[in-house]
């Protein structure tokens, strides 16, 4: 490579690298320093090295493990529900969407609304006095569950997340479905293949890579959930809807345990790193 070319390349990549270093590199350094120190908001400028104490505190905190378990369950269940529903809708509505494109626009409205707003909207919709859902349940069945009570709150947040992000899965599957060559379907129709068999034997196998991508993305987004749960119920009754993100947020801002919050964030980062490094290999292994 000529010297001029390498100078050019440095100039081309430079802005992005500098930007990342400034906005993420330095904070990452900070979190490593403070994650291994004894700190509070009062002693922010004089952190005392404390080794692995913060990590031991996190590991000994049942709330941390409860949050990790919540996030795992929430991510897995919502990803499966969204992809199942999204796939069914996409395959079934594909002929409609092809002829009337605007129907797709109507179905993707939920994901253009801020998740935080969606959480607030569900607060209104489910409110026992002002909400239409309890109102109709009362007038039709004379009974309405306590949606945000300890017994139902997990189901409620799962349904809220699922209804908001099923459109994402729907959109991915719709695109995948429409990119299947039409003559494949026509050939199957000529052979007298029933629609149900067409789906299992031809469409689904061809869409399988998209299914894995969608499951993965939806799991990640479900795992790191914050906005909609926080605005709908906060940490939930007895901390029952404390996701990993909410746990770290509360540890930091509510309780001021900076070192502990950072230790939890570092653990989360390390886990995410391992998963992200392993995921492409797993996905490739499947398709091979």
């Amino acid at each position, binding site marked *: 490579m000529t010297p001029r*070319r390498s100078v*050019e390349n440095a100039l*081309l*990549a430079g802005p*992005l*690298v500098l*930007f*990342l270093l400034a*906005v*993420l590199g*330095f*904070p990452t350094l*900070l*979190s490593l320093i403070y994650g291994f120190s004894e700190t509070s908001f009062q002693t922010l400028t004089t952190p005392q090295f404390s080794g692995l104490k913060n990590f031991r505190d996190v590991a000994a905190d049942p709330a941390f493990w409860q949050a990790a378990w919540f996030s795992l369950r929430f991510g897995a269940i919502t990803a499966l529900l969204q992809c199942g529903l999204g796939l069914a*809708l996409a395959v*079934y*509505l594909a*002929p*409609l969407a092809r002829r009337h494109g605007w*129907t797709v626009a109507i*179905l*993707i*409205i*939920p994901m253009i*609304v*801020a998740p*935080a*707003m969606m959480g*607030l*909207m569900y*607060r*209104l*919709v489910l*409110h026992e006095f002002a*909400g*239409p859902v309890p109102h*109709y349940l009362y007038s039709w069945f004379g009974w309405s569950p306590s949606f945000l009570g300890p017994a139902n709150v997990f189901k409620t947040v799962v349904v809220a997340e699922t*209804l908001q992000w099923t459109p*994402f899965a729907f*959109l*991915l599957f719709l695109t995948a479905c429409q990119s299947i060559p039409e003559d494949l379907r026509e050939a199957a129709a000529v052979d007298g293949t029933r629609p149900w068999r067409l789906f299992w034997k031809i469409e689904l196998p061809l869409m399988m890579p*998209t299914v894995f*991508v969608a499951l993965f*993305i939806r799991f*990640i987004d479900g795992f*790191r959930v914050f*906005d909609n749960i*926080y605005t709908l119920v906060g940490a939930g009754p007895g901390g029952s809807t404390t996701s990993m*993100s909410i746990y*770290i*947020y509360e540890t*930091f801002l509510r309780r001021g345990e*900076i070192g502990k*919050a950072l230790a939890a*964030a*570092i653990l*989360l*980062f390390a886990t*995410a790193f391992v998963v*992200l490094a392993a995921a492409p290999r797993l996905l490739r292994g499947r398709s091979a």
Partner: protein
Amino acid sequence: MKPRMTLRWIVFAIAAFVMNFPVLATLITAFKPPGEVARNPSLWIEAPTLQNFAAVLTVSDRLNVYHYLWNSTFAALIGAVLPMVVALPLAWAMVRRGVGRGVLFPLVVNLRALPLIIFAIPLYMMYSVVGLLDTRLGLGLILAVVNLPLTVMLLVNAVAEIPAEIEEAAHMDGARLPRLLFKVVLPLCRPALITTFIFGFITAWNEFLFGLMLTTRDAVPVTVGASFFFATSGGGVQWGMAAAVMVVAALPPLVLGLVMYRRITGSMVAGAVKG
């Protein structure tokens, strides 16, 4: 119409109604007078009124919605434009010369999958030292990070679609690199840049966690401002006004998204599949 198609319309209508139900109910509530909400929570409005919107759009001691909207607009503009500025040169260098293909590109793309809270705490500490806490610029900078992965992916795709012959022809004509980038690559990438901007603007506008942590008063974005409205209204929540605030807050991205839905659906799919 064939019966099979009629059934599809029915399924579509049910899916659209259920998934959009909170949005629909909020819109309806926003047009109910204050007394009606508690008495009549149904989807029917007895006495439609604009007074909730009038109250929300009037500046008062308790609420200045224009301030929130301006904060969101300013931060979302930085959050959408800055990543394009830093990503386009890299996208070209990567596609044409392989710069950053090994480490930088996977690093940036994987940012998409990390829980944002990891960066929120150290950023809070850094911002409090450098004076960026509770500023629109500070908020915009981190929103730019949020948008960076998708921006890089979309622009790399866009540059890769430019036929190499066009650039070679410009090169033959003696165009140097800056000229090539500004006169050839930039105009050819314009459709992708518009898509990226719309997508980034909507994402940045809708972001909540960083707005919640990094702003307190001066730079509060509208997503966070709307949630104050639920928490701080003493006795009961004024549902009509709260609903009107939410409609106002959700409207800019919705309008942008629906007008341009063909563009953003395409880019969302591209981003997901390449990631």
